[in-house]
């Protein structure tokens, strides 16, 4: 009898726990929507950004800053959503396709390079910025002037990243050290363990501008690839794509785009490649 009572209690508590878990997630959604309704009145929209990339998409407390965030806000506004209607969702690189195809986000602004492979699973609007792979070196290092000077040097990048793969093709003689995140590469670079760090120049500029590294690191400024940052949307949604492209064009025409770029990438001393920027949007497909 005792045993039966006991197991009934356990079963009941497990059930309530399960329900509580469901309740929690529902609350989360509610809370986000709640923060949306404070400013809003417009259409609720979920936007995926990076939370950890200074200058592009950075979460500091409840504030979101960066170029991706500013472009996202502008586009959302043109599409009928006020700033308060936006729910920001973290979109780590490996999860971007899944977030879109499962409908957890409506749009992704997260240093999302347009590639043919990715076009198989998602559609892209834009591009809204054209970055390129570059090198970050110590400020007093004059020996590395570009990718061709890397032979025999120690280079750092993130495990599996496009930048790491590309540099192996461009400079076969380079010694590549890979880490899980760029922060570890930057630490190794400042301690002298490696000679250079490679990834998109926008990301590098963000690290070079961080307070603790100011004056210690510099971006070489010679890109050796072209990364076209697009806006990831559900595959085949050409209507949304057209709307976003119109909004982007307006953003460039009104000068808001330039303002956003200057405000977010300017402090890092980042020179925008004006021969490629501002880019014109691709045709929607």
């Amino acid at each position, binding site marked *: 009898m005792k045993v039966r009572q006991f197991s009934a209690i356990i079963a009941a508590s497990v059930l309530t726990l399960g329900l509580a878990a469901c309740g929690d997630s529902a609350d989360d959604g509610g809370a986000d929507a709640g923060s949306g309704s404070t400013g809003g009145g417009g259409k609720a929209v979920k936007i995926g950004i990076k939370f950890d990339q200074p200058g592009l998409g950075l979460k500091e407390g409840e504030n979101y800053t960066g170029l991706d965030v500013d472009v996202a806000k502008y586009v959302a506004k043109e599409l009928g959503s006020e700033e308060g209607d936006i729910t920001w969702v973290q979109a780590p690189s490996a999860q971007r*396709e*899944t977030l879109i195809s499962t409908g957890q986000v409506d749009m992704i602004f997260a240093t999302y390079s347009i590639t043919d492979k990715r076009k198989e699973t998602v559609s892209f609007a834009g591009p809204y910025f054209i970055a390129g792979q570059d090198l970050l070196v110590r400020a007093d290092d004059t020996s590395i002037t570009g990718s061709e000077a890397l032979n025999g040097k120690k280079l750092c990048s993130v495990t599996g990243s496009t930048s790491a793969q590309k540099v192996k093709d461009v400079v076969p003689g380079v010694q590549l*050290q890979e880490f*899980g995140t760029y922060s570890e590469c930057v630490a*190794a670079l400042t*301690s*002298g363990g490696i000679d250079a760090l490679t990834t998109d120049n926008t990301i590098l500029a963000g690290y070079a501008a961080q307070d603790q590294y100011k004056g210690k690191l510099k971006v070489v400024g010679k890109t050796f690839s072209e990364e076209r940052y697009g806006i990831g949307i559900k595959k085949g949604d050409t209507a949304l794509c057209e709307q976003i492209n119109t909004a982007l064009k307006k953003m460039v025409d009104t000068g808001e785009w330039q303002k956003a770029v200057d405000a977010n990438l300017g402090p890092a001393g980042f020179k925008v490649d004006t021969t490629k920027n501002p880019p014109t949007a691709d045709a929607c497909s």
Partner: protein
Amino acid sequence: MQEILSDYDVLAAFWGTIKLSILGTIGALILGTIVAVLRLSPVRVFQWIGTWYVNTFRNIPLTLLMVFSILGLTFILGLQLNSEDISSNVFRWAATMLAVYHGAFICEALRSGVNTVPVGQAEAARAIGLTFGQSMRHVLLPQAFRGSIAPIGSTIIALIKNSTVAAVIGAGEAANLMSVVIENEGSRFSVFLVFAIGFVILTLPLGLFFTSLSRRLAVKR
């Protein structure tokens, strides 16, 4: 799935995992045995050292050990296991850290094996005049190994799967290739399937082997 297998060198990546696991297992068995003997020795200082080792390395996350081996030991202290080639340096450190970390678990598995040996046997061994070393070698450890095959097998399987942590320092193994594939192809279900199956192929037969071994070699008392 076919595409992943034909476009990427999955076999080479798993060969990296196998090499890493074999090196790590050998190192962990040696280290674990040494530490277990230290913990069982009658000398108080040795016991302290053994206890310290287990408590330290069992409680530091493996990721931290891996990153420390490169950021701290290689780059700041200059301890390179291969100064010519950065990727082989990383690989050797990854194997070392796998051995160091799992050595603590092997030690505890062995100690549990020693505890299956009745105290009377240890006392009898000392009574007939065997030294500590002799009683370890001829009486305690052979039975301890046979008694702890199942937990040691579990530790080795855990080691194989934990070898994926080496991706945080970029050692060439399966998890490293997986992040390359995900970067290029997107995180599709088939990507995970390929690598999950790969690990199951590595670990499942090993688990069956250790289970049957532990049954056959169990000390009948």
